[in-house]
């Protein structure tokens, strides 16, 4: 009998610690599937983050390196420069990438470092318990924005669109934003990830896939409601699709603008 859907080789067969309805599990799987399809499990290195996905090294069946919060792109720079034929995958959340590590992501991207960043945007701090993130939407409640994010009055500023910000930099070659709120978006996101990995393996420059991901626990919603909130509230602000594609190859139809 032909197996058409199984456990990815690059994922260890254990249950994750993630909350019900969390997007990390799906995203982990998409990365693992892409690595399996490219046949590069033995030369893949995960840059393990600080945040809810701090245990990602428990789940991936390949090497990992963990540097301080926010410094993932700097650590990955060191790894990739030493091992240029390896697939280096940075896994970062919104606090990690867009707050404490803003300098690192901007400059790694601008240098055109040849690794791929998977940027999980759930508009909240997960691990520390629901504080405001740089990507928290205006009006969205957080423990540190109890009345909702107030950009002007309380001086909390505006949500950061990371793909659009990085798109101005010469070193960035592929920037896409996907979502795991629905099956069609999951499939598109997988295509973005695979395309970014392929570009990395060709040595084309900095690649990043931002992924809108539900956090039911810290949004205080049920899993279904949280997925709906991604579509209804996040997607209108964080537009899906390929924000920048300078890979020089025609975009496949299923990976086009959402």
């Amino acid at each position: 009998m032909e197996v058409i859907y199984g456990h990815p080789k690059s994922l260890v067969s254990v249950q994750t610690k993630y909350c019900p309805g969390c997007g990390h599990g799906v995203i982990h799987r998409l990365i693992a599937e892409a690595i399996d399809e490219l046949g590069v499990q033995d030369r893949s290195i995960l840059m393990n983050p600080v945040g809810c996905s701090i245990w990602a090294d428990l789940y991936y069946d390949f090497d990992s390196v963990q540097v301080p919060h926010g410094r993932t792109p700097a650590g990955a720079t060191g790894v990739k420069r030493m091992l240029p034929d390896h697939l280096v995958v940075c896994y970062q959340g919104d606090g990690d990438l867009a707050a404490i590590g803003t300098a690192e992501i901007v400059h790694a991207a601008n240098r055109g470092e040849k690794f791929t960043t998977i940027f999980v945007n759930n508009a909240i701090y997960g691990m520390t318990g629901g504080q405001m993130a740089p990507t928290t939407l205006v009006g969205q409640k957080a423990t540190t924005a109890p009345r909702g994010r107030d950009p002007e009055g309380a001086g909390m500023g505006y949500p950061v669109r990371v793909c659009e910000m990085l798109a101005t930099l010469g070193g960035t070659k592929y920037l896409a934003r996907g979502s795991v709120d629905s099956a069609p978006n999951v499939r598109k996101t997988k295509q973005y990830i695979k395309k970014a990995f392929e570009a990395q393996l060709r040595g084309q420059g900095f690649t990043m896939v931002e992924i809108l991901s539900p956090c039911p626990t810290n949004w205080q919603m049920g899993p279904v409601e949280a997925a709906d909130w991604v579509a209804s509230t996040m997607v209108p602000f964080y537009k899906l699709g390929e924000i920048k594609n300078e890979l020089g190859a025609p975009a496949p139809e299923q990976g086009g603008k959402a």
Partner: protein
Amino acid sequence: MSEEKRLMKGNEAIGEAAIRAGCDAYFGYPITPQNELTAYMAGGMLDRGRVFIQAESETAAMSMVFGASAAGGRAMTSSSSPGISLKQEGISYACGADIPCVLVNVARSGPGLGGISPSQGDYFQATRGGGHGDYYHIVLAPKSVQEAADLTYKAFDLAEEWRMPVMVLADGLIGQMMEGVVLPPARDASPRPRRPWAVGIPYGQRGSARRTPNHVTSLCLDPPALEASVRARFERYERIAEQETSFEAVNLDKAELVFVAYGTASRICLGALQMAQAEGLELGLVRPVSLWPFPSAELARLAKGGKRFLAVEMSMGQMVQDLRLAVAGSGSRVDFYGRAGGVIPSEEEVLAYARKLLEGKAASASEELWK
């Protein structure tokens, strides 16, 4: 390359020694007074096809070092005092993940932005771990351009052997001055060091069998397991103290009063010692070369033998605390003379202070200095 002698700035000699030691990757950020080192590495590393990155910050540079070392490379960074403070985040992580690497601090005066003149005010930070958590790392203090080169070269070997960051703690004087230096032989950098714990598989090391994944991290959320790893590291520290403590001793047989000083301050003491000798006064000198591990046992032995000590530092007194701990209980007297803020004491003033001590006229260093 055979042995050759060159006239070089300390900063350049450190860079050349690192290249000759087989440094695979250098990451740095400009800061005075170590800028020649970063520039030297840019030319030297890129010309050889090795990795050089001018990082966006000292913080990032240190995490680049972490990544490059975790991926099997001999990695290095350098900076000066305020920049070293920024690197402490990554140094703590590197110590927690047992990452070999070389750090160079061409120290300047502080606190804060302070000044750009030479200082020894970073002794505490260097020898007490410097960042958060329970750890130490080796610290070597050169007194000359020659020793700056030699200790940098040695630092790569010590880092590899003991699986830890090794810091060369120089100061702006050693970084900026020019002296003759015999450079160590250039090694073939192409074979990477054998690190079974590192990630990835470098060229030429690929086997057929797939090994279990390596995870390079300082994270451990299980207190007993974390305690066990910290304890194992401290057992290693004891072996390092036994095997890697180094110091220079001068004229100890004849002297009653022994200077204890490192780096630039030790050269000033040596000058004072020679001036005293010419005038018929015998003084001694113990110069710690390894600041961590500190030569406590030798100092304790000298204290038991009836010596008294004068610690001389370009700080308000940091190493002197290690000296006091080393000789505690011996009844031996420890005095201190220091200048701060980037002021370099003269041989004459150090000798004058030593004479006052021997004549019983100086009550305390602070009293002398600040009245």
